[in-house]
């Protein structure tokens, strides 16, 4: 029996327990995408009960190893439920299961949605021009809805509220080589912390590459692996990180918009004022975090956890984000155009 037919048996048992009905598995196939988590394409039929029907979904399971600060699929499942409840456009998550993808691992099924997620196509494919024209409005609305989820309203959401600098330092600690640029940037960040404002749900990876786009607009936001409690400016800074511009450097918001266009649209959608100095701090923080993330991905390869050419290739790209963090420190905050 091959790996996938054993998995199909476990998936059947998991889904039968979750739906309370008999289930037939029609297909299990590997999918490309996501350097972090195990995703499989699955098709199955729930034979009876309130969930009865034929499904084509993504089975998303805990990866054998992941970056520190990333959520388990159990936490991620609850975050997606909370986001869906407040109207965030994201693939629906269903049927939390245990021991299906691997012993001890959590997994769940995600709706498949149509669209393009590849960054370079999002920012420049002429076939997506009509969808691209809607990005500022739609993404600012999605983001402002995410930020309506608060610890007070959702006391049971199993999320952390960690100090962002400490989080990056835990990524950097195991690295064998010095990263003087990150040390300098972290020192600057520590000396210029913005005063804390509202605490809300933060998506944590809200950027070009993590939403699906069709000519009709955004079909959904993806990848809640780094969600946590934090301040809204964190997501607003992260989407401006240079690496998500895919060649469109003069469009700092994800390669598709100016800061002024996006932050103004967010203010309209959320009714909250955007503090540009705080967003600048978070954009620097974002570059530092992604630089540390790149170096960590390389370590996962070097420690033998994952043999993946993409991971080892990413490690040296840390220098790009380090450069950008220092450039932003020198430039100072952008101003509304």
């Amino acid at each position, binding site marked *: 029996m091959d790996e996938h037919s054993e998995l199909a048996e476990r998936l059947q048992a998991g889904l039968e327990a979750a739906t309370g009905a008999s289930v037939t598995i029609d297909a299990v196939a590997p999918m490309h995408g996501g350097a972090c988590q195990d995703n499989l394409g699955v098709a199955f039929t729930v034979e009876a009960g309130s969930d009865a029907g034929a499904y084509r979904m993504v089975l998303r399971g805990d990866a054998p190893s992941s970056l520190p600060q990333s959520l388990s699929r159990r936490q991620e499942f609850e975050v997606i439920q909370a986001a869906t409840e407040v109207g965030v456009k994201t693939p629906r998550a269903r049927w939390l299961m245990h021991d299906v993808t691997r012993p001890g691992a959590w997994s769940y099924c995600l709706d498949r949605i149509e669209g393009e997620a590849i960054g370079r196509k999002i920012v420049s494919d002429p076939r997506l021009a009509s969808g691209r024209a809607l990005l500022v409005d739609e993404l600012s609305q999605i983001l402002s809805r995410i930020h309506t989820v608060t610890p007070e309203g959702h006391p049971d959401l199993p999320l952390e509220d960690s100090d962002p600098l400490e989080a990056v330092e835990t990524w950097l600690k195991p690295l064998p080589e010095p990263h003087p640029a990150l040390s*300098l940037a972290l020192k600057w960040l520590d000396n210029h912390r913005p005063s804390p404002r509202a605490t809300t749900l933060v998506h944590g990876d809200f950027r070009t590459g993590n939403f699906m786009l069709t000519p009709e607009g955004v079909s959904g936001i993806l990848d809640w692996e780094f969600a946590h409690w934090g301040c809204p400016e964190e997501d607003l800074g992260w989407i401006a990180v240079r690496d998500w511009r895919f060649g469109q450097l003069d469009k700092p918001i994800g390669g598709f918009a100016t800061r002024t266009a996006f932050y103004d649209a967010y203010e309209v959608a959320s009714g909250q004022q955007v503090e540009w100095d705080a967003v600048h701090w978070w954009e620097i923080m974002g570059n530092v975090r992604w630089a540390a993330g790149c170096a960590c991905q390389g370590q996962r390869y070097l420690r033998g956890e994952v043999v993946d050419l993409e991971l*080892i290739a990413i490690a040296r790209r840390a220098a*790009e984000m380090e450069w950008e963090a220092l450039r932003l420190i020198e430039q100072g905050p952008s101003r509304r155009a």
Partner: protein
Amino acid sequence: MQDIPDKATLLAAVRRFLKADLAAVIPDPALRFRVLIAANLLGVVERELGHEQAHHAAEVGRLVALLEDADAEMLLGLQGDAARREALGPLYERLLEGDSADPDAVFDHVKATLAEKLAVVNPRFDLSSTID
């Protein structure tokens, strides 16, 4: 001394083979993407072979200017990444702990070293200060 073709020529030949001959005929986009990553990594190694002596000398030159007691001759004589990393690591710790009198010069040094790294890792990376 080895015979020709030298290592830079061999690397360039393999990189061109991956990129020009192999990638074009791989139907699976995920696998083709990985072949292009492999070709790109060979390009990194080629550029590093070409620049490593000069970049090491430049980095040591700036470090010695910032930390007067650093031993330039010893540092310049180091061969190989491991030995260089071991010797430079403690110097960077001292720099970052404030052993240099001029924090702006430390910042400039770190940025100059990044520019050298980027010339190897991604020569298309735009180093101008006003990109947006």
